[in-house]
């Protein structure tokens, strides 16, 4: 008996509409665009700083524009979501075994959230917020 298997292709551009979990995955991946764009913005800021006081003042002025504020808000939301998905993933990537049992996953993720909060406070302190 000859075989004639039927291949049902995975649609290359619309597959993520098939399941809500795929959409959640894509939304997580898309947040990296905002994170990357913000990194570019920081590099541009450094370049303006190196160009002298006039260039730096112009850069600061541009940051206060409505478009910039909207971008910063979106980038903040995306970065927080990206970070949360990352920290939630740590319990899968770094399971911790003590003796015969494993440390509960939410403790591993929770430790990352705690470290995030502490480091954020340190950065804010160094920036002179308090």
């Amino acid at each position, binding site marked *: 008996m000859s075989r004639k298997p*039927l291949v049902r292709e995975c649609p290359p551009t619309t597959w993520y509409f098939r399941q809500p979990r795929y959409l959640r*995955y894509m939304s997580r991946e898309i947040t990296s665009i905002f994170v990357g764009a913000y990194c570019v913005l920081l590099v541009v800021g450094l370049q303006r700083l190196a160009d002298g006081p006039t260039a730096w003042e112009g850069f600061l002025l541009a940051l206060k524009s409505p478009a910039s504020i909207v971008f910063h808000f979106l980038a903040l939301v995306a970065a927080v979501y990206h970070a949360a998905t990352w920290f939630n993933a740590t319990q899968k990537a770094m399971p911790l*075994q003590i003796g015969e049992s494993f440390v509960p996953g939410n403790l591993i993720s929770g430790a990352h959230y705690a470290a995030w909060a502490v480091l954020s406070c340190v950065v804010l302190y160094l920036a002179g917020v308090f």
Partner: protein
Amino acid sequence: MKERTVQLEVLRYNPDTDTEAHFQRYEVVCQEEWVVLDALNKIKADIDPTLNYRWSCHMAVCGSCGMMINGEPKLSCHAFLRDYEGVIRVEPLAHFPVERDLVTAPDDFMEKLKRVKPYVIPKEKKPISEGEYKQTPAQLMKFRQYSMCINCMLCYAACPQYGLTPSFIGPAALTLAHRYNQDSRDGGRMARQEVVATHEGVWECTFVGACSEVCPAQVDPASALQQMKITSSLDWIVEHLIPGGRSAGDAASREDAVDKS
């Protein structure tokens, strides 16, 4: 006993006569506590004996009856009819060629399973007279979860990366590689790295995580693959960035030494 009438829309494909698959709808009188597999058995027995599908144990152990049920990879013996409303759409496992009706061709998975050497490669061979290779409960727990795989291939049907890039070794096979890498009796990690630490191996995984969500044996392949990414990265760092750094094989030996200490 309470009964319910269920409508199933089943994908049909006959390689002898068809060039495309099509859906066929069946109306089946079922018992309230039945699963989708029971309904398929009822169809085959009373309505349409030409329907083809695989099953064996009817208790979520053998891994034979995996299908897409309303688009979700499921063991049909583990999918209760009462959990579904309206027409239930039953299709063969996604991402595998369809042999006939709900029967898929697992050849690709079987070939990939062999490539990861899913067996203990003893790190030190000893004569039988010296007795068994002993293991502590803690050493067993390190890999026990990953040994629960029933090869049902639901994780492959859930993984979009496998669907888009069929050369990807895939969740179950890579998880088995991890299972043996984590075994204190095993010394075969370096040999498996040739398959694991490649683009077709763990680096094709983008951590969608669907494999772990659909696994009926709670194996968590996503966790295994992320752990192997970390190990593979450490291998690379040791080999390329540390002066006098040693290869993955040496790193494996070093891990073994840590295990022994």
